[in-house]
Structure formats: structure tokens, C-alpha cells
């Protein structure tokens, strides 16, 4: 079996940003994403998910290394300063590299 290295980018942010982040993903070259609602706490206090307006969403995308770098840079430049959010990169291995 042949596993291929990829990057998993994870973004945890305010729910209102979901659509914008997904757009950004597409622009940077991601071919898919997965999202779900979470609750959490961080620098900007507790985010409880009882109102969409104050909830969090977690967005995952598996992408090529170059895309990951571009994506994180863009998130940093466009959104990090103003919104409650974090983003990080993990190494993963997949079977069908052409899919991502």
C-alpha cells in the first residue's frame, strides 16, 4: 500500500466566519472540506454554541503542502487579527493523493 503525505489544516473560528473560510479554502486550492459545530474557550473568552452568533465551528481540509502554507498565510493576514480563531497544520497520510 502506498500512503502519500498531505497536510491537514484545522481552523476553529466564530460560526459567522464559516462561509468566508470555506471560500478562502477554495481560492487557495483545497478540493474539499469538513465542518462541524463546537464550543470552546480561548483568549476571547468562552464561546458556548447556544446562539449561532456566539458559537464556534471547526473546519478541516486536507491539502497539498503548498496549499497549506498559502492558506495559513491568508488566514493570518485577513482574519486572525479581528476574529476569535486558531488554525494549525498536521501531517497526515492518504491513499489517493490526486483527490486533494
Amino acid at each position, binding site marked *: 500500500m502506498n500512503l502519500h503525505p498531505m497536510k491537514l489544516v484545522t481552523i476553529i473560528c466564530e460560526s*459567522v*466566519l464559516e*462561509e468566508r473560510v470555506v471560500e478562502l479554502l477554495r481560492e487557495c486550492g483545497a478540493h474539499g472540506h469538513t465542518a462541524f*459545530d463546537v464550543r470552546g474557550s480561548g483568549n476571547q473568552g468562552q464561546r*458556548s454554541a*447556544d*446562539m449561532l*452568533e*456566539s458559537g464556534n465551528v471547526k473546519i478541516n481540509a486536507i491539502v497539498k503542502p503548498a496549499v497549506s502554507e498559502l492558506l495559513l498565510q491568508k488566514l493570518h493576514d485577513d482574519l486572525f487579527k*479581528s476574529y476569535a480563531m486558531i488554525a494549525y497544520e498536521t501531517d497526515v497520510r492518504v491513499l489517493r493523493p490526486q483527490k486533494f
Partner: protein
Amino acid sequence: MDLLTAIQSNLLSPAILFFALGVFAAVSKSDLKFPESLYTTLTIYLLTAIGFKGGVAINEAGLGAVWLPALAAMGLGGLIPLWTYPVLRKLGKFSMADAGAIAAHYGSVSAVTFIAATNFLKSINQPYESYASAFLAVMESPAIIVGVMLGKGALGGGKFSLSDAGVRHALRDAVLGKGVLLLIGAMVIGALSGKRGMASVEGFFVTPFQGVLALFLLEMGMVAGKRLGDLKRVGLFLLLFGVTAPLVHGCLGVLLGGWVGLSTGGATLLGVLAASASYIAAPAAVRLSLPDANPTYSLTAALAITFPFNITVGIPLFFELAKILHA
């Protein structure tokens, strides 16, 4: 019934008491927690029901009776930010973004405050124009657009631009957001299906309505209660603003209501709408288009100060004012 009796009877209604219970649950850090989907479900129900009932009323009253007060309501909503913004800038020393954000919230409206007011009127058998939910529908968006433009400095030649992704999303949400869509959509449906339609869905949209509101206010109480801790952070000025603004806007609304020919009940409702501050449509749209505004300011003021003030004291107050005006 004088003002004190009115306030007292309002405070002892199940809806208000459930709100208090919610605040207590949050403050006492009980493990009571509503499932995340329940808040949205109840919102959908309340908006749909209030819209539908308003539509049936329009069907009966005819559009002719509705357009003038609706236009007046809409105008009032769009104008409110024009004076709250400078007040917040000058007296409150807020940044442009923050002042625009708060102005947008206070010009826009709160559906639940409106519903609580109709319940109050119903409980004291005070008639009102049932198509008043049309005012609610048209007052939601204008203030958001005006507030965001102010916050972007557009009126001072600033950088308000449709090519900004945040602004684009925000405008769409302000105009076509779920609140407006459900309200206006259900209203059109009510107007089209009329009394016969109402007969078929009354058991869902009317019978349990007040109880559902009580349950929703329990949750709102928890949401507001969790924000009480932020009161210190927003500063004394905003605390005062959170009570003064509804007083001023409420009186304006009542006066305007009387002027465009609404009954005592209807004028009360227009007052309540003007006095209320949005915490559904405005927060999302403002967050996207004025990212530098601190949401703690606007949400805490709207949810933890103005909302409780209106549903406890404001509603009976504006009603008394409307009575005096019509006497």
C-alpha cells in the same frame, strides 16, 4: 390600571419569570444547558408564527392600512443610528467601528421583545393592530446597513466598499437573513392563505405560542445571565446608554405611532420596537462587516441591559405613555 400595577402584572407573567429563572441558572452556574439546536428551533418557530399571524391580519386589514405605519417604522429604524452614532463617538469615546456596531444594534429590533409586548397587551385585553409584525419585519435591516456604513466611515468618505467580502456577506445577511426571510415569508403566506389557512395551523402557531415564548425566555435568561459578568468590562457609559436609548427611542416610537394613526396598542408596539435592540440579525451582519468592533460591547448592552429593561419595565411604560397620548 396604573403604571405600577401594569409593571407588577407584567413582572408576574410566566414569560418574564422564566427569564428570571434563566438568569438565576446562569449566575448560579447550574448544569442546566439547552441543547444547541433548541435555541434555533425556538427562534424559527417564534418568527414563523409571528409572521404568519401578521400576514393573516394584513389579509383582513388590507395593505392600504399597513403601508403608512410600516414606512414610518422603517424610517425610524434607519434614522436611529444617525443620532446614536455621534453620541457614542463623542460622549462614549467609542471607536468608529464600535459606535457604528452599537448604533446598528439599537436601530434594528428584537423579535422576542416585540412578542413579549404583544403578550402583555393580550394579557390585559388591550387590542392592537395584529399586522404590527410587519413593522418588526421592515425595521430589522435598514439600521444595520446605516450603522455599518457609519462604522466604516462611509459618510465621512471612508472605505465602505462592496468588494469587501465581509461587507458583501453582511449586506446579504441583513437583507436576506433568516430573520427577515422567515418573518416576511410567513407574512406573505399568512396574507395569501388568510383565515382559512389560519384555521388549519392554529393548533401549532397559536395554541402553544405563549408557552413556547416562556421556554425561549428561559434560554434567553441563561444567555443574558452569562453576559452579566461582562457588565464591568463595558463601562458605565454603556450601562447608562443601555437604559437611556430605549427610553428615548420608545417615546419617539409611541409618538410616531400616534401620529400615523395607530391605536394605543399599536403605538405601544411601535414604541417597543424602537426601544428594542437586535441580538439576532445585527450581531452576525455587524461581525462580518465591522470586524474591528468588539462584539462584547453591543451584545452585552443589547442582551444584558436593554432586553431585560424592555421586557420588565419598558413595555408597561410605553403602554402607559400611549394611553396618555390617546386620552
